């Protein structure tokens, strides 16, 4: 995955075997392949939940901006940064690459 990922037309998808458990406003993600358990805060959790392989990053940003209009100005970069971090630890990948 190159440094410019994710682009607006990228389709992030959660790694198979990774599952999220909703707790308070957070999501605990458990990855039984990487033997990893991490806690995502509410905004990262919202991004995680949208990584089902059916949406482009552009569509994710639009959807989140509609849900959280007060944060619209920073959502674009927040989503990209969150996806980069999730990809670094192997929890999401480019959907087209996974197929």
């Amino acid at each position, binding site marked *: 995955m190159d440094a410019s990922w994710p682009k607006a037309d990228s389709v992030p998808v959660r790694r198979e*075997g*990774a*599952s999220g*458990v*909703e*707790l*308070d406003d*957070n999501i*605990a993600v*458990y990855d*039984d392949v990487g*033997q990893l*358990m991490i*806690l995502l805060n509410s905004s990262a959790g919202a991004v995680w939940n949208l990584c089902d392989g059916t949406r482009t990053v552009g569509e994710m940003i639009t959807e989140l901006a509609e849900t959280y209009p007060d944060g619209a100005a920073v959502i674009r970069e927040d989503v990209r940064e969150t996806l980069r971090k999730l990809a670094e630890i192997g929890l999401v990948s480019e959907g087209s690459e996974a197929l």
Partner: protein
Amino acid sequence: MPDVHDWAHCSANLRALSYRFAVCCDDAALGAHISALLSSLRDSDTDAENPHEDAVDAGPVGEPAPHRYTLTASAGRAGAVDVRRDDQLVESALAPGVAVGWLVWDINRLAAELSGQHLLFHSGGLEASGVGILVPAASGSGKSTLTAGLVRAGLGYLSDELVALELDATGSGPGRLLPYPKPITVKPGSFGVLADMAPDVPDGDGDGEWQVPVGDGTGRRVGGACEPGFVIVPRYDPSAETALARLSETEAFFTLALHAVNLLPHGPAGSEALGRLAAHCACYALAFSDLDAACGLVLGLVGARV
């Protein structure tokens, strides 16, 4: 190996979660002592047909337990015993009390190893009016001491070391805590606050631990399988003010994950079960320096809810 009828004493069939076993001795007094100590693990499924129990006056022959410990006089040291598991020598020339401590430790180890279908926690476990209490903590946190104190106060005992959560088959409920009422292991540091629980016959693993029997005739009640309702995370700190503090669902989830023995093999189903457990239970951290005060807080908490 001698035939079962050659043993001076054999226990009933016993069960530690999924580990089924019996214990036979060539010393009647030691055998009777071990049987009494482990009587809370009696396997009710096979009890009536046990061919081993009281072998001297053996009853009807039925299915023996699949595993068997034997303790025999050691040839190498007077008064010492050799321990075999399934006819394999596993310990030799132990003082009888040390052998008993080792036996409890090995049973616990195999209970964990053979009960992987359940989600297992390094935790104490109690039952109050049909509601389960998990007491997960690292060794040295006061887990067994608090568990023992609450059993002394009248709560049902599930375990002081290893609690099994039978996962809900539908994947929607919190599951059930299963009793594994091994003897309560009390470390020397807690002898003072649990002095009235001192066993008549001291056993130990060489460090002088007590193995405290539970169940019939001991005044310490064994609890039944129950849905969990509380998670209490103890931390003994001699300088702390004894107090409960509510844990968030997230804090409870990660605490339970930390003390889950076999989360990994359960995969996503395990973490989802943890999530349901954290969401379903009232979860608290308990810092304590005073056992009676700590037990009072827990009893008040539980009594207010059940």
